[in-house]
């Protein structure tokens, strides 16, 4: 278990300046430690490794031994960084190993689908460490379906990839901003600007 601590030294502030005993209360930044941990529960390890095995299976089908080596690299990324980077690296290797089979058509071969399934597991396995694993997975699936659906629809409508890319990134921005506004409402931080006459 390793723990990264942000500003954990009580004698220094966020900028590393030494704090004095008598402190002005006008400073805005919180200086106390906020722990960010890379600790994972045993179930995360189990499920994550299972997902990694699925990825390995897909890549072995696609590229043989080279796929297994790529799987090791993906696992290293997952262990050291996060599932996000593992997915990015995984798709980069898919791009390399399936260059001859994947076409600009919107279809994926079976081995790629298997590997994608494993990468999805790597992405959603952190849900087990949250208080709301079901909602986490639900939010992931709904968002993924929405983003992909909009991107596919945009591609079918325009037959241009850049339009699909624009729609995907735009939809992602809208969903993120919507959650941000949702947070403001939930916390009652919306200022009422309605003037009473």
């Amino acid at each position: 278990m390793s723990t990264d601590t942000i500003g954990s030294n009580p004698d220094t502030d966020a900028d590393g300046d030494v704090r004095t005993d008598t402190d002005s209360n006008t400073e805005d930044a919180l200086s106390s430690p906020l722990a960010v941990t890379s600790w994972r529960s045993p179930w995360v390890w189990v499920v994550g490794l299972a997902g990694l095995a699925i990825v390995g299976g897909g890549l072995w089908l696609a590229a043989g031994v080279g796929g297994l080596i790529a799987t090791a690299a993906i696992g290293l990324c997952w262990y050291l960084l996060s599932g996000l980077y593992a997915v990015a690296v995984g798709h980069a290797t898919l791009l390399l190993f399936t260059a001859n089979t994947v076409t600009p058509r919107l279809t994926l071969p079976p081995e790629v689908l298997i590997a994608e399934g494993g990468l999805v597991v790597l992405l959603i396995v952190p849900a087990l460490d949250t208080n709301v694993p079901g909602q986490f997975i639900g939010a992931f699936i709904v968002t993924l379906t929405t983003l992909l659906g909009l991107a596919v629809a945009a591609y079918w409508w325009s037959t241009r990839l850049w339009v699909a890319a624009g729609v995907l990134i735009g939809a992602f921005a809208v969903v993120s901003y919507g959650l941000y506004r949702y947070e403001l409402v939930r916390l009652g931080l919306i200022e009422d600007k309605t003037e009473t006459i």
Partner: protein
Amino acid sequence: MQVMHGTRRYWSGVGLVVVLLFSALLTARPVMFVAAAMIGASLVAYQYAFVHGLSHTVNELVVEEVIDSESVATDETTTVMLRVDDRAGASLALTIESQPPVGARITGERTVNLSVDDPGNYTSFEATWPVTGTFQFDQPHLAVRDRYGLFYDRVPIDTRNSPTITVEPRGPQEMHIGRGGNRIEATYGEHESEEFGSGLEPDVLREYTAEDSADRIDWKTTARMNEPYVREYEENTDRKTVVLMDTRACMTEGPSGETKLDYARQVGMALADSAHSFNDPLGLYVITDAGLTTRMRPTAQRSQYVSIRERIRDLVPDADADPETATLARTPSAIHRASTQLTDRSAFATRLRPYFDTSRTQLQRIDRDPLFRTVRSHVKPLQGSIWTAIITDDTHRAELREAVLLARRGNGRVLVFLAPSVLFESRGLSDVDEAYERYLEFEEFRRQLAQLDRVSAFEIGPDDRIDTVLTSGAQMHHASQQTPTTAASSTNPEPDSTPEPTPSPNANPNPNP
């Protein structure tokens, strides 16, 4: 208001999405679209979990902030305790930071950190208050970060109680209120109306008359006397009290923290407290060299008492204006009378007329005097019997006398609290003999005021200085004058010290005897 922020990790994830989309465009491979969508969906899921956890935490977090004293003097220190209990046991890293008022100097840690293993914690710190006023703590701020380091947030959070502290100015250490050097203690009691009516306290019995209502007949007395009798009851009333605070430049005299205004402030706050305790309607008028700056008509609302007390507490002298030191020996009415009699062209009248022309100028000055004008324009028109408390010094004597005369209208009474200038001047009591003579002049003026009908006049000032003047000064003065026969009476310039009720800042005084 601060809102949710993405950390560098989050924006790195967004960067991955963008890079994957670009690679999809460059390679024309839909599989990269899938990668971008997966990472984007993952970021949204993390964000949703953070928002859900935060709102749940805010709802379940119990924050208490307690201060050990709600009223302190300036530069005093209080201890503040911040206690936090996370009933939800959130998986987020939480830090709660107290938000004391900006004017406070903080010593110690004012943040509380919570974790999954430590859902309840507290901290205490000390706050020093150099500035007078009423201060309220802002809502504590909750800083929260998700365990993956993707988001952080900082939001105000409700507490069970929001501490408020009142910082009072440090008053003079030795307060003297009295007459002729004799301290007068405070007295308390219900104030009587001196009018009969249908109150609760029985007062007198009298025979029934045709004008009386039948329900006012006292049947027991009637049966005993064989004549119809009516019992009169004393009517209890609220007494309207108006405080006139002089904050002109002349009130700045005196050492720091012991100026005339510092003493006047203590008297004013004591009057306000007293009126509050009796629920008497209370008003406040603050006079500066520029004129009237505060006008609060007398009412008996709680908010009025609080506002007046705060206003008096926060009074600052009008230091920009030049203090006038001139005094008048004659009243405006006497000047007017004398000048109108000098209408002939005799040598006598011709000789004296210029002096009264000067007096006319003085009369105009009285008319321009802010205190006099305030009484004439704002106190005199008030309905009913008014108790007027004028807290000032002896600089503008003629103007003050005219203001007192004007304030006595109707059945009103006037309390005058005077700070003798001789006790506050910068040269101090270096020449005790001269100071004693000047104090006698002041005392003579105070007695003149006190001799007016329905007027009570008191001196306010530092106790030790008055003692010095009245002991050392009297001895030196009489030694130089060699008139020992008068020494005893001079030490107590007003032997008829019949105790009159008077406010005392040390004992929550009451202007109402």
